[in-house]
């Protein structure tokens, strides 16, 4: 099939995103602000609940066949937890679901996360528009992988 035709397969299907705040961080308000912003931007939004394990995040992402997992943490444990999610995805051979990060992430850690395929990594105060555009970009990447045209 031609690439152009393939891309049109999902053209009316909203970006599906799983919001997750795995690990030991219990603040949830920020998540609901994001969830609402994503929905208003026309996405299908899932929320993995309070303190899901990395395994639960990955299982949910697969069951729901999301385009993007959006991970967020505010307590500095991001490297360990984000890496766990990325490792699990890799172990299970999943390359057609993108991972983006967010939270209070020191600049020094960002290249490490990028190397794991976790992009964005926006801090507090980032305009929602920037985050949304980034998610849509990564979702399109993931979808073209789902369709085998990457």
């Amino acid at each position, binding site marked *: 099939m031609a690439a152009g035709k393939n891309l049109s397969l999902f053209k009316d299907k909203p970006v599906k995103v799983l919001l997750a705040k795995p690990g030991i961080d219990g603040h949830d308000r920020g998540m609901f602000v994001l969830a609402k912003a994503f929905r208003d*931007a026309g996405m*299908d939004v899932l929320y993995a609940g309070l303190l899901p394990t990395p395994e639960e995040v990955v299982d949910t992402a697969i069951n729901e066949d999301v385009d993007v997992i959006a991970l967020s943490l505010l307590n500095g444990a991001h490297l360990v937890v984000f890496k766990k999610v990325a490792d699990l995805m890799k172990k299970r051979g999943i*390359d057609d679901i993108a991972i983006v990060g967010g939270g209070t992430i020191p600049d020094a850690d960002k290249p490490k996360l990028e190397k794991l395929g976790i992009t964005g990594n926006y801090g507090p105060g980032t305009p929602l528009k920037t985050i949304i555009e980034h998610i849509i970009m990564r979702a399109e990447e993931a979808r073209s992988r789902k369709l085998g045209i990457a």
Partner: protein
Amino acid sequence: MTQTPEEIADGVLAGDIRSISRAITLVEDHNSLITGRKIIKSIYGMTGRAGIIGITGPPGVGKSTIIGNLASMLKGTGKKVAVIAIDASSPFTNGSFLGNRIRMQDKLYRDGIYMRSLSSRGSSGGLSRSTWDAVRVLDAAGYDRIIVETVGAGQADLDILGMAHTIAVALAPGLGDEIQAIKAGLMEIASIFIINKMDRDGAFMAMKDIEDSLALTPQNEWKIPVVGLNSINLDGYEELLAAIEKHLAYVRKSPLSAKKRFFNEVKAALMAESELRINALTESSMSGLTDLESDVRKKVDPYTVAEEISKSVLGDIA
């Protein structure tokens, strides 16, 4: 990972979760209709084994909570269980918050139950088609019980529920006058009534209200039970589980119901097929069905033309 429709179908039949998930993505996306259909056609022969349970009722009565508990109990009896839940999407942005999962996911996580959220966008024909197809995928994948949560109103809901063997209508105290309208609409399709939130005031009144209405309604062989649930301490769940299993056994004994279900399946497929074909019509292909030029000249009204065209395929309306 890219898979051909054939590979996805094989994966579904082998019970592979990623293939199941991808198959549902494809049947949910109306632009992937052709691929989705290919998959359904090749797995259809393996469907028909699952017991399909629809749970419907107004928002907030506790459907998702009930499904979490019920799925977990069914799993405890050795059944392979999957859940599909439909969330309402915003008609303005098309986006949706898939919140049903939140109410049940702790149980799902613990028990490793497959659950998929669908969003209620697009045409009602499209939604029931994709829900039916998602259920077929899970059925062919070997799930023994598939529980479907619907939004609880409208024709789309009734179309979806047409595929269920057993329909549980969930209500809760405090619905006010609304309950009369719901009762009227759902009395005929309910196999079981649930009054949830038995810990709340007015729960026993609500139960009695339903029981009284049922006593006045002519019923067939199956006597519709009214089950009270407390979803916090799980009172009533044994009774619900027993009622569901009893009804599934009752339905599956009857060859008449298999035919009726297939009638519903074909009707839904026909609805999807005609929508597809109508959307694909052009001026020139429509000219093969009616003489557009002459219709314009004679100022024939569009309904008459549409009736003539439909009649030639589907016959007169009885």
